[in-house]
């Protein structure tokens, strides 16, 4: 199941990022939270979205401030100066919502998955050993992980 989810997740991220945020992506290596750059920068934001269904778990997304601002600009069609915190947080939660919903829609299951409400979490809530997939865009990066309960 995890392999299926990872394959679907990569296809979904590419689709969502290109269609809604106009940012092409490439996938980098898998690294633990502790090993990657994501643990070092306090300006980055982390978001979690839980799901239930045939399997239960959650998606975790960590994104750099630069990439979040760029994504919000493209998504909302607004200038960098006009973006407020609410726009950035809303863009982040919606981005993860689309990644997760689109991914789970690609998985054939007996019972439909149900999504929770995306929430911003503190990076201290993430285990150092949690494995993330690095997602590269033009000059910026984010990291995403699926946690199975």
């Amino acid at each position, binding site marked *: 199941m995890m392999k299926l989810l990872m394959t679907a997740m990569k296809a979904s991220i590419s*689709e*969502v990022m290109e*269609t*809604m945020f*106009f940012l092409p992506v490439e996938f980098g290596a898998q690294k633990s939270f502790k090993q990657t750059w994501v643990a070092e920068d306090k300006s980055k934001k982390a978001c979690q979205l839980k799901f239930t269904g045939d399997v239960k778990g959650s998606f975790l997304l960590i994104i750099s401030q630069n990439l979040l601002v760029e994504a*919000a600009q*493209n*998504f*909302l*069609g607004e200038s960098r100066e006009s973006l407020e915190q*609410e*726009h950035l947080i*809303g*863009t982040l*939660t*919606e981005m993860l*919502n*689309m990644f*997760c*919903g*689109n991914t*789970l*829609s690609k998985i054939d*299951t007996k*019972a*439909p*998955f149900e*999504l*929770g*409400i995306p929430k911003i979490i503190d990076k201290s809530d993430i285990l150092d050993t949690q494995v993330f997939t690095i997602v590269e865009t033009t000059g910026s990066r984010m990291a995403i992980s699926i946690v199975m309960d």
Partner: protein
Amino acid sequence: MSYSILIVDDSLPMRSVIIKTFKAAGYASAQFFEAANGKQALDHMKNGWIDIVVTDYNMPVMNGLQFLKAIKTQELLKDIPIIVVSTEGNETKIKEFMDAGAKAYITKPFTPETIRDLVTDILGEVDYDETVDDSNEGFDF
């Protein structure tokens, strides 16, 4: 003709994106109203006429399916077309909405053209001569 369009989504950016999509599609002269969940939307609909509703599914307080079912129980509101825009594309979920009376179901991510074509089909062709001067925000996403 100026339409009244209600956008129901707990995400402020997504409401903004959908409104821009409508404006880009030629509905710049429409009146747009926003609600963050089904309950807020129902409260709004009791106080003024709405021509079309675009709603998310996954929202706190009252989700899109509960909202849709609540509308369908009310004589004055039950014929208002409801478009569902959701990240969840599972066939069972889509069928549940369509059986409950949704006019259409769009999965995210979507292109502006998808919404334009669908809404134009539901509301009819817009008079671009009347709306083009107001549409100064352009097709900007």
